[in-house]
């Protein structure tokens, strides 16, 4: 459905993509500077590389060399840019109705719904300079949406939206996909968005595709360098509250196999289970239990695996019945002489354990 083939050089950076995806929604994932925006601009026709082939829903939009090239306005691939780039001399309403036909679209029930979801109703007569950052981003989204494009190109459309709004925007995308079959290429840094929305995804690293496939496939192979870094390897545990120690200011939570994690005192009733967040860098590994430590938690664990990822090493540990990950430097790893199956002691400060709601 979306076929992209291109090769483009720009000074130190070169982009090379060859991808064909079946589903209508293609997600692009990749660290900062990996070429995501560049790719979207090539698709939109704003950059004119020497080698490009672009086919959307069976329609050939560009083939070079080969002479076929359509101008941006002929492609009707509306862009939601990373900077919102609203037209500063036009009111929000005029921005939204900028594209040909957008005025009628805005008046339609679908358009009105969009305005409601994006919470733009009260802002229509304002000037773009009188909007907050998130409001601007929403207008850019609505503007592209109302252009009734052949396909939407979204560059991090939810980056500066609060979680609630970005969830609603996501729901909007989902609906558009289901009901309108609107094809989309979108850039995101959030795995959840990819999972929920994309039929296919593309992971870029320094201009090259390093992983490609359905989001589940791609995200389930986090060991592919880069993907793991992008997805994040922090720990989110659901633990049962075992007891409160009000004097000590801690709440003990069960890790299974008799192990307990001391966390900051909380009010959750004993017996209920709660999510606790732990940053991988807050876990300290030792070969033996240290004589004295300020860390309330010094827990025995077994190393399941060690994975060098980028410039650091991710150590996966079995801690009670939970699996947790720690991130350490290669030098620390070689000092400790870590290996799979080895028994270590994990130190965790009480304050490094964050109770999360939900």
């Amino acid at each position, binding site marked *: 459905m979306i076929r992209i083939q291109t090769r483009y050089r720009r000074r130190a950076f070169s982009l090379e993509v060859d991808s064909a995806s079946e589903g209508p929604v293609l997600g692009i994932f990749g660290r900062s500077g990996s070429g995501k925006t560049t790719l979207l601009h090539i698709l*939109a*026709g*704003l950059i004119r590389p020497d080698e490009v082939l672009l086919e959307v829903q069976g329609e050939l939009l560009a083939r070079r060399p080969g002479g076929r090239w359509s*101008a*941006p*306005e002929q*492609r*009707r*691939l*509306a*862009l939601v*840019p990373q*900077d919102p*780039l609203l*037209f*500063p*001399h*036009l*009111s*929000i309403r005029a921005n939204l109705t*900028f*594209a*040909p036909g957008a005025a009628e679209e805005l008046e339609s029930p679908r358009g009105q719904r969009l305005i409601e979801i994006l919470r733009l109703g009260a*802002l*229509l*007569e*304002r*000037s773009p300079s*009188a909007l907050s950052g998130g409001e601007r981003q929403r207008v850019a989204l609505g*503007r*592209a949406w109302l*252009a009734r*494009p052949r396909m939407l*190109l979204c560059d991090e459309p939810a980056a500066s939206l609060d979680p609630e709004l970005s969830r609603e925007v996501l729901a909007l995308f989902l609906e558009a996909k289901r009901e309108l079959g609107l094809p989309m290429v979108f850039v995101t840094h959030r795995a959840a968005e990819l999972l929920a929305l994309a039929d296919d995804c593309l992971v870029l690293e320094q201009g090259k595709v390093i992983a490609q496939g359905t989001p589940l496939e791609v995200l389930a192979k986090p060991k592919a360098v880069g993907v793991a870094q992008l997805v994040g390897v922090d720990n989110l545990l659901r633990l049962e509250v075992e007891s409160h120690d009000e004097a000590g200011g801690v709440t003990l939570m069960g890790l299974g196999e008799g192990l307990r994690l001391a966390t900051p005192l909380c009010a959750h009733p004993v017996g209920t289970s709660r999510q606790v967040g732990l940053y991988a860098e807050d876990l300290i590994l030792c070969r033996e239990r240290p004589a004295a430590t300020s860390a309330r938690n010094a827990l025995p664990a077994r190393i399941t695996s060690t994975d060098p990822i980028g410039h650091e090493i991710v150590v996966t540990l079995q801690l009670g019945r939970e699996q947790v990950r720690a991130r350490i430097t290669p030098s620390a790893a070689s000092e400790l002489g870590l290996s799979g199956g080895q028994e270590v002691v994990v130190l965790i400060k009480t304050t490094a354990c964050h109770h999360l709601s939900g």
Partner: protein
Amino acid sequence: MSAEELGVIRLSLQVALAVVALSFLPGLLLGRLLARWGSRWRALVQGVVMLPLVLPPVVTGYLLLHLVGRSSPIGRAWYALTGEHIAYTQGACVLAAAVVGFPLLVESVRIAMLGVDPRLEQVSRSLGRGPLDTFVRITLPLALPGVLAGCVLSFARALGEFGATIVLAGNIEGETRQIPLAVHTLLNVPGSEAAVVRLTAISVFFSLVALLGAFWFLRRGERRLASG
């Protein structure tokens, strides 16, 4: 004010308005071209456009006369075509003032267009508006303060133009005598200071009107936006 003076004023206004109307489109396009054009030829083109500013206006007048005068190829071709001469007519007034004021218009437009973010034009294209549409809806309005300033400058310059006009169009009563030429004539008539002051005051007045008109036009756009 005498009927003669009124005639002079009417002619001046006609000429100045015609100058702006005539140079607007070429000035806009050339200013835009010079703002975005990366080529090394740009400096040359800009230099040529700026020529009338450097040359003493009288010299500009003579150059134009050589170019379109009655004995020049262009002048003769024009005569063959229309049965009219260019030199020493109202058309010559317009031509002289337009050429002299053109660099001001072009430079104002060019500088204003430099300030327009090209990414806005890209977004407009991606939203389905072609290059012309984008120019009219995005580039032009964003450069409007400069474009209007350019128009006011060239209007004002046309109202004040003397040197090139007297050479190319002459100072013929009722035909090519505009305010500056009339002022020049009156300066040679002792005791006509009042008329000189009157005429220059009127030409200043019309420039101010043009200026305020431009302001009003800009404000209107801003107010429409701000009222939300």
